[in-house]
């Protein structure tokens, strides 16, 4: 893990100019602080009232303060104290916070209750007041300072780590480790703690700035580093009174703290990304935002019947075009041609990685970096979509073309009632009044055979099948002409599957809906599709009416898929049990 982290880190920094500049700045600052005695001959505590409040000059690169002490020397020696205390404090705080948080989150029960109460009480005190009290009780000095600062800083860490632990505890691999006989401490260290590195790093770095400032506040009150000794925070406070007279007194330590905190935060992000096993690819939607080109008529009035197919893919080829992607150059779809007409259900069968979801996303204009359409065309309602911009697509999505996803629970917002959930889809596309929308929502619920009481329920109160009906209702509310169903029944029970498939078939015949049904399950596709296309490795290997594909498959791959349908045959040579 350490080896991969270093490798990722080096790779990330090589591409990152800002990161390198910050690294160089902090490195220089650190080196200067550590080598202070060799760099400046001035004594940071030597007062010289003849030379007080001198502006920066060759003799005093950062000027002198109100005691005539050299600010540059104080900055360097002060950095030693500030950074050492801050780093030690961050380590102590993280150690306490992580231990308490993981213990509370993993063991739960009484342990959790006691620890959470302690955290609550500590959080209720104002942080600085508590730190002052602790430091005053222990007397001034470095060690009491670290203890005082850490004692008040760990509760927020513990809180956040506890929440993350609760989440990781539910992960399959933690359950697997427990059933495998892995002892609790090993589960905690190997599975829970190591997966928390990302959030811990970010937390610690975010707090570094806070800690430096807390330290300075305590130093200012005489509870930390004793006054003649330099320390960044203390320097900031001393200089405050002379801000107008001698701004360099504040600017020097201020800039130093600024650089350290900025660099720490930036690195926290870089390191966190490097701990991820897979490349972190943010969607770059903003690149696609463009001015609207004006919609083709057919898309603007999707319900008007025309001779055009609803969607026509013609020789569609999609490649990974982003050179930063590890899959750069890979071909996802290779010359795929497929049409869906009004009132027709086309089944698209393919295994994971065959490109079926990519094809579905093309019909919604949701193909994005690192993927791009490199050849062929996608026609919606007879209009070529090549030049469509984001806003053009937005008019079509959810209105003329709707999508039903695999997982109904993640497709629904857990804090919205069903009424708002469905109404929102209609509201974004029409200026209709609330009563009109409400009427239509009731109507569409009836169309998917859900009782009106569902309106005021939340997603978690519904069963999986009911949730999928709600998602279908959201798709139907704007009366689309084309419905794309991407594995709509995979997450459901067999008996529920049958009812959802019946519903889709009924809607299709009643409203003349075109249906593109994407699935890996041949048994499901056989129930609904009029025609079937089989996708393998980005190519359509076989296409034809459902009956032909299922009764007289010609292609070897189609035959292999048919043979793989479970339940048709017994595995040979069964060993008979008792």
């Amino acid at each position, binding site marked *: 893990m350490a080896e991969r982290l270093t490798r990722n880190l080096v790779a990330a920094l090589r591409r990152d100019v800002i990161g390198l500049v910050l690294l160089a700045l902090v490195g220089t600052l650190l080196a200067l602080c550590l080598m202070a005695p060799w760099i400046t001959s001035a004594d940071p505590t030597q007062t010289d009232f003849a030379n007080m409040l001198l502006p920066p000059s060759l003799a005093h690169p950062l000027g002198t303060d109100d005691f005539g002490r050299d600010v540059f020397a104080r900055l360097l020696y002060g950095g030693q104290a500030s950074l050492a205390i801050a780093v030690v404090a961050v380590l102590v705080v993280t150690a306490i916070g992580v231990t308490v948080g993981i213990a509370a989150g993993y063991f739960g029960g009484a342990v959790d209750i006691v620890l959470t109460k302690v955290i609550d009480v500590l959080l209720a005190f104002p942080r600085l007041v508590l730190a002052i009290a602790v430091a005053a009780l222990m007397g001034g000095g470095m060690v009491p300072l670290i203890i005082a600062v850490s004692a008040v800083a760990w509760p927020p860490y513990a809180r956040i780590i506890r929440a993350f632990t609760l989440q990781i505890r539910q992960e399959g*691999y933690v359950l697997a480790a427990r059933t495998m*006989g*892995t002892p609790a401490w090993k589960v905690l260290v190997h599975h829970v703690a190591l997966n928390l590195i990302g959030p811990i790093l970010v937390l610690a770095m975010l707090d570094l700035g806070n800690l430096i400032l807390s330290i300075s506040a305590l130093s200012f009150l005489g509870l930390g580093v004793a006054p003649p000794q330099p320390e960044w925070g203390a320097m900031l406070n001393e200089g405050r009174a002379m801000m107008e007279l001698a701004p360099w007194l504040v600017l020097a330590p201020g800039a130093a703290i600024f650089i350290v905190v900025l660099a720490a935060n930036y690195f926290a992000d870089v390191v966190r990304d490097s701990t991820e*096993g*897979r490349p972190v690819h943010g969607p770059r939607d903003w690149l696609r935002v463009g001015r609207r080109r004006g919609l083709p008529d057919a898309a603007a009035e999707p319900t008007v019947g025309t001779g055009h197919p609803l969607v026509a893919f013609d020789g569609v080829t999609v490649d990974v075009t982003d050179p930063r992607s590890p899959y750069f150059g890979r071909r996802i779809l290779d010359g795929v041609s497929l049409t869906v007409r009004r009132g027709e259900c086309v089944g698209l069968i393919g295994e*994971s990685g065959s490109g079926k979801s990519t094809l579905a996303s093309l019909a919604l204009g949701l193909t994005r970096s690192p993927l791009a359409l490199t050849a062929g065309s996608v026609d919606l309602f007879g209009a070529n979509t090549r030049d469509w911009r984001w806003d053009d697509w937005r008019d079509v999505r959810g209105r003329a073309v709707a999508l039903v996803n695999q997982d109904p629970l993640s497709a629904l917002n857990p804090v919205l009632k069903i009424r708002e959930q469905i109404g929102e889809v209609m509201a974004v596309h029409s200026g209709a009044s609330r009563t009109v929308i409400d009427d239509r929502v009731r109507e569409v619920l009836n169309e998917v055979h859900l009782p009106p009481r569902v309106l005021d329920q939340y997603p978690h109160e519904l069963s999986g099948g009911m949730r999928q009906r709600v998602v279908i209702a959201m798709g139907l509310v704007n009366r689309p002409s084309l419905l794309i169903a991407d594995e709509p029944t995979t997450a459901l029970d067999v008996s529920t599957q049958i009812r959802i498939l019946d519903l889709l078939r009924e809607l299709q015949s009643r409203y003349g809906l075109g249906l593109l049904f994407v699935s890996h*399950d041949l048994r499901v596709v056989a129930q609904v599709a009029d025609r079937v296309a089989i996708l393998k490795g980005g190519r359509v290997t076989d296409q034809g009416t459902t009956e032909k594909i299922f009764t007289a498959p010609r292609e070897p791959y189609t035959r292999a898929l048919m043979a793989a349908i479970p339940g048709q045959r017994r595995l040979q040579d069964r*060993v008979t*049990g008792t």
Partner: protein
Amino acid sequence: MLSLQGVTKAFNGQHAISDVSFAVGAADIVGLVGVSGSGKSTIARSILGLERPDRGTIRWEGRPLADRAVRRLARREIQTVFQDPRSSINPRWTVRRILSEPLDNWYPRAGREDRAARLEALLRQVSLSPDLLARYPHELSTGQCQRLCVARALAPEPKLLVLDEPLSALDVSVQAQILKMLHDLHRATRLSYLVITHDFAVVRDICHRVVVLDAGRVVETGTVDDVLDRSTNDRTRSLLENVLPLPFAPPLAGRKDAG
């Protein structure tokens, strides 16, 4: 080997399972079938010692699982393969480390060579290449992940494998490969399986006996042939009717050995 007698468990006053009794013998493959919410997972969690039954006893090799010593033994001799292979392995670990975890637990004193030999043997049992040892889970296909989970479960040399919906996260052709692998493994090792599934088709393909579960109760127990083809129980029949029929009989269906 494993037997459940009148096992009952309630959550918030509602019975998740009530009075469940069945047994799994040596070299036996038993299917536990039911729709979601029928109590399949609660039974699995009870067998794995993650839940404590309110009433009834679970016995392992004739001794009650409530006993600490028996539970420690069972923790080694009963291993599990979960539904979603991706989520049940730590995404930040290499294949080597994932497979080493159970070896560390059960063979802490194994030497370097012994361990390397074991790793290779485990991978061979599930037909994975030893080249994969340095890979991370996201570099494997879902089918390979599921094989890896099976290999991990085999590491402590268990006597019973609890397979919790081992196929439902997989593609059709991969399902067939994993089924075949499980079947070959059973022939080679005589390991017992408890296959938990909602899919009667899977039961027909691999199981010897089947336990049909409905609303937390066992409605029927018997051989696969008796239950799937000649059941007289109304609940079983209605559950069987929910199996997606193939509207067109594929010509390649090797039905000659069915029944």
